[in-house]
C-alpha cells in the first residue's frame, strides 16, 4: 500500500508550478474577459519544454510513458493559476492514439508537441442510456456521437456535430469516437481536411478555449483502438477536469484563509468566527475528499480498470462540487470586494460555472457514479 507521491511526481508538480509562475495568468484572464484576446499567454511552448504533450505517450514513440495521475498533477497546477494550457483536449486524444497500434506513425510529433491534438468527447453508454452521445449546443438533449461510413479506400467519412469541445480551435488533429454500422470506432481527423469546421466559442471564462466542431463527410483515419480505451478517454477527461478543479480549489481556499486571518470586524479577525471558520473547513473537507478520489482514479486506470469509470466519475463529481463551493465561499469570505471585477475571486467563480457544464458536466459524472454502483449492487 502506497498512496503517496513519488519523488519524481513531487518534482513534476513543482516544476509545473515553477514554469507557470513565470506568467501573469490571472491578470491575463481578466484582460481577456475585457476583450483583449491577445492578453492570454501562449503556454504551448512552455508545455513542450516541460514535456507535457507526451506525458501519456509511450517512450518508444517519443513520449514520457507516464500515467493518468502524473497528468493530473500537471492539470492541478494549471487549475491553481487558471493557466490556459491545451492539455485537456490533447492528453485524452493522445491516450486514444497511444492505445491504437495503427496510429503509431502519428504519435511522435504529438509527443513533442510539434502538433497538437484535441479529443472529441463522446459519452459512453451507461445503465440507462444505450448509445454514445455528445454534448449539445443548447439545452439538455444529447445528440448521438458522429456517424462514420466506409470510404471504400480503407478509411472512413465522418459526419456529426460536437459542441463545446475543449481546445479544438487551433488543434492539428481531432481524435474521438464515431459509430460505424452502429459500433463505436476510433477515428483521427486532420482539422485541415475537407468537411471539417471548428467554430471558436467563448463562454463566461476566457481562459477556456472551446470550439463547436462540425464534421460533414470528413475524411478520417480508422483506428484500431480497443473499446475500453475509447470509453477510457472520456473517463480520463473526467479525471483531468477533476484535478484541474481541485487545483483551483486549493488557490481559492488559500486566498480565503489568508484574508480571514487579516481582515478584522468587531475587533476580531473574521476567521475566528465559527460561521467563517466552518465554511472554510467545509471547502477543505470537499477538497480532501476530491484528492482521495484522484488517488483512486489514478490507481485504478492501470490497477483496477473495471473500477476506472466509477473512480473517474466520483472524482469529477466531488471535485466539481468542491469548486462550486470553494469559489462561492471565496467570494463570500471576502465580502463585497470579492464580487468586484478587480478581484481574482470572480475568475475562479467563472471557471467553476463553466467547468461544471462541460464534457457531460458534473451532473453526468454524478449520475454515472450511481449507475456504476447500481450495476455493482445487482451483480453482487
Amino acid at each position, binding site marked *: *500500500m502506497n498512496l503517496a507521491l513519488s519523488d519524481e511526481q513531487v518534482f513534476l508538480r513543482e516544476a509545473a508550478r515553477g514554469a507557470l509562475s513565470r506568467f501573469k495568468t490571472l491578470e491575463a484572464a481578466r484582460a481577456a474577459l475585457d476583450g483583449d484576446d491577445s492578453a492570454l499567454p501562449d503556454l504551448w511552448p512552455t508545455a513542450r519544454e516541460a514535456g507535457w504533450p507526451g506525458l501519456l505517450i509511450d517512450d518508444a514513440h517519443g513520449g514520457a510513458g507516464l500515467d493518468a495521475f502524473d497528468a493530473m498533477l500537471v492539470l492541478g497546477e494549471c487549475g491553481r493559476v487558471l493557466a490556459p494550457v491545451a492539455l485537456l483536449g490533447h492528453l485524452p486524444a493522445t491516450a486514444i492514439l497511444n492505445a491504437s497500434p495503427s496510429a503509431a506513425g502519428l504519435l511522435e510529433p504529438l509527443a513533442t508537441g510539434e502538433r497538437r491534438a484535441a479529443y472529441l468527447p463522446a459519452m459512453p453508454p451507461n445503465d440507462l442510456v444505450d448509445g454514445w452521445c455528445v454534448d449539445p449546443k443548447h439545452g439538455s438533449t444529447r445528440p448521438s456521437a458522429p456517424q462514420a461510413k466506409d470510404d471504400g479506400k480503407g478509411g472512413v467519412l465522418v459526419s456529426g456535430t460536437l459542441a463545446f469541445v475543449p481546445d479544438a480551435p487551433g488543434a492539428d488533429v481531432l481524435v474521438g469516437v464515431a459509430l460505424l454500422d452502429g459500433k463505436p470506432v476510433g477515428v483521427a481527423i486532420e482539422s485541415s481536411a475537407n468537411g471539417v469546421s471548428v467554430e471558436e466559442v467563448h463562454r463566461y471564462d476566457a481562459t477556456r478555449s472551446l470550439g463547436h466542431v462540425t464534421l460533414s463527410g470528413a475524411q478520417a483515419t480508422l483506428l484500431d483502438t480497443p473499446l475500453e480505451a475509447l470509453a477510457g478517454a472520456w473517463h480520463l477527461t473526467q479525471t483531468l477536469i477533476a484535478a484541474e478543479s481541485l487545483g483551483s480549489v486549493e488557490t481559492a481556499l488559500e486566498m480565503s484563509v489568508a484574508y480571514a486571518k487579516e481582515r478584522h470586524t468587531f475587533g476580531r479577525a473574521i476567521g475566528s468566527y465559527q460561521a467563517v471558520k466552518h465554511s472554510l*473547513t467545509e471547502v477543505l473537507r470537499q477538497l480532501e475528499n476530491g484528492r482521495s478520489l484522484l*488517488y483512486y482514479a489514478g490507481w485504478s486506470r492501470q490497477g483496477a480498470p473495471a473500477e476506472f469509470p466509477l473512480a473517474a466519475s466520483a472524482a469529477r463529481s466531488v471535485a466539481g*462540487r468542491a469548486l462550486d463551493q470553494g469559489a462561492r465561499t471565496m467570494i463570500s469570505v471576502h465580502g463585497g470586494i470579492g464580487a468586484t471585477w478587480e478581484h481574482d475571486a470572480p475568475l475562479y467563480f467563472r471557471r467553476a460555472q463553466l467547468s461544471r457544464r462541460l464534457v457531460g458536466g458534473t451532473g453526468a459524472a454524478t449520475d454515472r457514479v450511481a449507475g456504476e454502483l447500481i450495476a455493482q449492487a445487482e451483480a453482487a
Partner: protein
Amino acid sequence: MDLDDTPEQAAHRTRVRAWLEEHKGEAPVLTGPDALTDEAEIVSARRLWQGKLAEAGLAGVTWPKEYGGQALGPIEQVVCNQEIAKAGVPGILDAIGVGMLGPTLIAHGTEEQKGRYLGPMLHGDEVWCQLFSEPAAGSDLAAVQTRARQEEDGSWRLTGQKVWTTNAQFSSYGLLLARTDPEQHKHKGLTMFILPMDAPGVTVRGLRQISGEAEFNEVFLDDVALDADAVVGGVGNGWGTALTTLMFERVTIGLGGEGLGFNSLRFTKAIASDEHGRRDPKVRKELGEIVSELLAVRFTGYRTLTALQKGQIPGPEAGLAKVTIVNGAIKAGDLIADVLGPDALDEDSEWAYMISFLPGLKSAGGTEEILRNTIGERVLGLPPEPRLDKGIPFSELRSKEGAAA
C-alpha cells in the same frame, strides 16, 4: 502508487486467511437464523473469540510482543481486519480497549500496570471501557468535574458521573479522567485513573437512545476508593494522557470508516431494489453524491495508512472523514426511506435502526461544530475562538461563565 501488498504483507495475509479458514467455525454467530440472542451469551462468546484471535496474532497486532502483540505495523492490523470481514466472522469485542486504552497504557502506564492489565485486556478476559465524557464535558473534555480527592495515606476518593460509556455494563475496568486539583486551570488539574468497575460506589445504568436500545451507559461514582497505584501517567498529567487516547481514536476512525457498516454498496442495494427509484434522475443524483463521498473516505483511509507506515501521526483532519461518513449516512438513510416509504421505518428495519442511531453519532468523539473549529484552527491556521477559560483556576470558571451570560 499502489494498493498492493508487499511480499511480506502478502505472506501475512495468506497466514491470516488460512487461520480464519480453519477456525471460522468457532466464531460466534451474530446474524441469520442461528444467531445468538441472549446478550450475556453473546458477550461471553465474543470474549472467547477475541481470545482466539489474540492467541493467533490477529488482534493487538501493533502491540509490543512482551504484552502479547505482534510488534507489526498498522497495515498488518488492517490486513487482519480485512480478512476477518471477508471471512464473515465478528472482530474483537473490546475494540476500545485494544485499539485505544491499551495503547494509552503502553505509552503512559507503569511496568506493574502494563504487566497486570494488558494481557487480560488483549485476550478478552477483562473488557475495558473509556470513562472520559460527562454530562457537562463532551467536546470540551477538559471541563470534567468528576472529583478525585487524595487521602492522607495516598489513596483516592472519587465522586462524579460519566456518560456515553460503551460496554460499561460488562467491563472489568475503566480508564477514567478526573479532576484532582480545581485550583489549577482546567487542563492542568486532571489525572487519569484505572477504575475497577466492581468497586463499591460504582453504579452502571443503561442509557436508552432514539432507537429504544441502550448502546451506552451512564456510570455513577459515589465516594469510590482507589489505591495510589491506580494513577496512570502521573498526577496532574491527565490531559496529556487523554490526548494519547484521542490520537489512537482518530487512528481507529481513520482506518475503520466502513467498519461502521455505512457502506456505499449496501446503501445502493436498497435503492436498486426499487424499479422506479433506480431510474429517477433526482434519486440517482442524490445517491451519486452520497456514494462519491463515501468512496472518497475509503481512499482517505488508505492515505492515512500510508502516512502511518511512514511514521507520521494522523492529525485532526482525520476528523473530516468522520464528518463525511456520518453526514453521508444520514443523507443515505433519508434517501432510502424516501424511496422505500414508511416500511423503511418499521421497528425491525435495518434502516430504522440506522436512522435512529445517526443523530447521536454526529456528536460522538466531539460534536461536528467543535471538530470544525479544531480543524479550522489546527489545519487551516485560522485564529482561535475567543474563550473565557484560559489562565484561570477551574474553580473560578463557573462564576465567570455566569457573569458572561
